């Protein structure tokens, strides 16, 4: 049975500042930030693995703090600087230190969980630039990965810390 598909629900025009760029979009008030990023802004690097705040695949940085984009409404994200995995590359477009570390250490397989780990680690290393292996494990203990068994992700954290120390300040990833 088919129907013509009349116009849908009420929307609001909102501004989202993502990876240093301001976007204006029309969204219904109930639209999740994860959906707005992915489907309205085309930033599909942010993934959705559970939609209930447990897996961490949708983690982005909200004013630098790791935040689950599936637990936030887009309309509530207007006031903040949002950073997604797409904003983690260096200004010249090459891999940022955390991204490079994942590649160096085989920290990913299917890559679906990876963006959420990368954003989480990026923020974690801001807070603790020189983590011990235990602190590295702690840093990623809220994210699920079904492929890697995590050993190489822990290595990636430590490697990323090393790479970050090698970069002169001001040239880090993100803005």
């Amino acid at each position, binding site marked *: 049975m088919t129907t013509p598909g009349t116009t849908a629900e009420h929307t609001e025009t909102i501004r989202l500042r993502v990876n240093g760029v301001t976007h204006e979009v029309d969204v219904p008030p*109930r639209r999740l930030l994860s959906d707005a990023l992915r489907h309205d802004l085309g930033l*599909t*690097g942010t993934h959705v693995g559970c939609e209930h705040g447990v897996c961490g695949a949708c983690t982005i940085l909200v004013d630098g703090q790791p935040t689950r984009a599936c637990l936030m409404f887009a309309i509530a994200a207007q006031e903040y600087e949002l950073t997604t*995995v797409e904003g*983690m590359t260096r200004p010249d477009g090459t891999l940022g230190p955390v991204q490079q570390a994942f590649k160096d250490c085989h920290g990913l397989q*299917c890559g679906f969980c990876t963006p959420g780990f990368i954003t989480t680690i990026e923020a974690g290393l801001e807070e603790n630039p020189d983590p011990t292996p235990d602190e590295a494990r702690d840093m990623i203990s809220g994210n699920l990965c079904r492929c890697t068994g995590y050993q190489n992700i822990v290595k990636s954290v430590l490697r990323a810390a090393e790479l970050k120390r090698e970069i002169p300040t001001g040239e880090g990833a993100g803005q």
Partner: protein
Amino acid sequence: MTTKLMGEPVARVEDDRLVTGKGRYADDIMPGALEMAVLRSPHAHARIRSIDVDAVLDVPGVHAVYTYDDLEGPMAEPLPLLIPHPALTHGRTQYALAKDEVNYVGEAIAVVVADNRYLAEDAVGRIEVEYDFLPPVVGIDAARAAENLVHEDVPGNVAAVMEQSFGDAEAAIASAPHRLSLDLTVERSACMPMEGRGTVARWDEDLNRMSVWTSTQTSTGVRAAVATKLGLDLGQVDVVTPDVGGGFGVKIVHPWPEELLVPMAAKALRRPVKFTEDRREHFISSAHERGQQQHIEVGFDDEGRVLGMSVKFWHDNGAYTPYGLIVPIITSTQLLGPYKLPNYRVSFESLYTNTVIVTPYRGAGRPQGVYAMERTMDAIAAELGMDRTEVRENNFIQPEDFPYAHGELTFQDGRPLVYDSGNYPEMMRKARALVDWPAFEKFRDEARKEGRKVGIGIACYVEGTGVGPYEGGHVHIETSGKVKVSTGLTTQGQGHQTAFAQIVADELGVRFEDVEVVTGDTRRSPYSVGTFASRAAVMSGSAIALAARNARAKALRLAADALEADVDDLEIVDGIVRVKGAPDSQIALGTLAVLSNPLRYAFDEASRAATQFAVGDPSKPPVAEDDEPGLEGKDYYSPPRSTFASGIHAVIVETDPETAEIRILKYAVVHDCGTLINPRIVEGQVHGGVAQGVGGALYERMAYDETGQLQNASFMDFLMPYVTEVPETIDIDHLETPSPLNPLGIKGAGEAGVIPSAAVFAAAIEDAEGFPITAMPISPSELYALRLTHSTTSHERTAS
């Protein structure tokens, strides 16, 4: 000189894309597509009295709603029974949308297509269904008791009874010096890839063509299913596998109702349509595995040598059997592991329950088989007071015994169960060394003095990998010198683009960077089977190697003409064919690609370079009768039978004397997957497998209540390991016993990490606690309860 890449831990070419957020997963494709949501049965067993969709049509943004009554032609018939088997006398499959009856919570009843998922879900909420409730059958006990039936025309809930044997197990057990029997159970878990299912379809009215992108382990399988069900010619349907966020078995073709309904709706509405499931849907409407009850009888001699073994098991296949008997057949054959049994009998019943269907999950029945056998080996050792590794060694198939046939048993591929190669004694030697087996008793004593409980477990397995029927490879050298490779099977994170490029670079003599591999695209590779049973490296790796050799032969033939040299005097280095010892006499592969296609215009560097060479005899046609234009190689690999990888895992655990928490102190893996293509990828596979094994042994279970509601259908309640649950490090040692069955000597590696986990953890916990562990997984509270039972019984014993 080009360095050999085979066996090198090359960094993955996939990663740049995936770490920058540029991966393309199913839900990333076709922005703006209409979206589908599914009304799923909230009841485990019920007859559908009526479905009222009237209220849906008023929801703004809704484009269509479908129930069973809207399905036509083949879509209205039951979904295919993909792998029939003579023993599957009562196979049943569901309809794409339920007809009259639902048999598990989650079964699809209706779908709505709307502007977006939010609106589609709103509309689904408005569909009214009236049910007549039927008593649900949940769990193997209820299925066996058969007081209620899942399908009224399937007596005893028995889908299949199957038996295989060699020798005379009963007689051998009866006359053996020692006898034991064991009753074991394993519960359900599931693959749980981080990306759920997703399908996007676009019908092109101008080209009369269907394009489907789906998160699958077999693009050709989905293509055939879509074409058959929608009444399209195979040639009208393209299925492209985008990046896939993990599979582990569940994304093999079933086909899912949604995989058919999405293209159906796209064609009807002439708009792209997408379905992306949420996590709850993945729990209640994809597939689970592992649930079995096992009864084992074994007879053995004073050295622990098994003289006869008889196994009966009951396999929970869920509500339907689209995937036939693959899982229990694998359990019943792979149970034999690395051991030489003179007499063996196995029989199983595959039983219906009102729960989600059961299809292969990484390991696919092997973990249960290994659990049965390895627990038996441990029981024999305990009975005789022997070392557990020694009992195993006394039963090993010896290196000189290969190829080794297990009587007349038939494996899952319908072929005789014949092991191709292996070295189990050497593997045991390595495993004992890696975990320092001899030093454990001292460690235990020291721990005991500190009031700690520790235990060690060891488990062996043999894994049939690389099952047929075939895979293909296509290698195309472009005029730029770049090499484009395609194989039909799909990729879910195994790094095929890297591993296969390594093979091509070596075989062809080109730079790794110049090779690009595409997988799972039916436009490029219409003939293919799929990615399962640790078969990708064996099957496609071999096919691609053969294809590259063909391309190389053609390149050398053309180069010999162009350089007026003998083929045997040529070599290919970094994409340049040159005369050995006379490097000035050379021609680039790209130039040869131009020469191979003599009818084309000169429009690039390579074609201009080609003008200085004249190829062939002017009196003959430019393309010889037995030749084709283009510098390509193509081939298929179809093995006579599977190749058998093997391994041994050992674990040391500590159990908390108060809380019964189980902590992993050491985890060691010795693994033989034949020739290694990329050790870093193989180790990654082992790591991931072990983590899934830890989950399956200690945390994960599908908690169905007696009404058939899955009570833990979310990541909050289903305990999948985080970093905090897995071993901090895994010690890995490789043994390379090449397979004689394929050109590179490869065996599969994808499932190895997970296969022996239930067995090895049960053994270690049993060793720490001193009482038998017979049901897996085991949680701290269950272990605690067992402690109470055993302390009461031992107390009673002392009292009496």
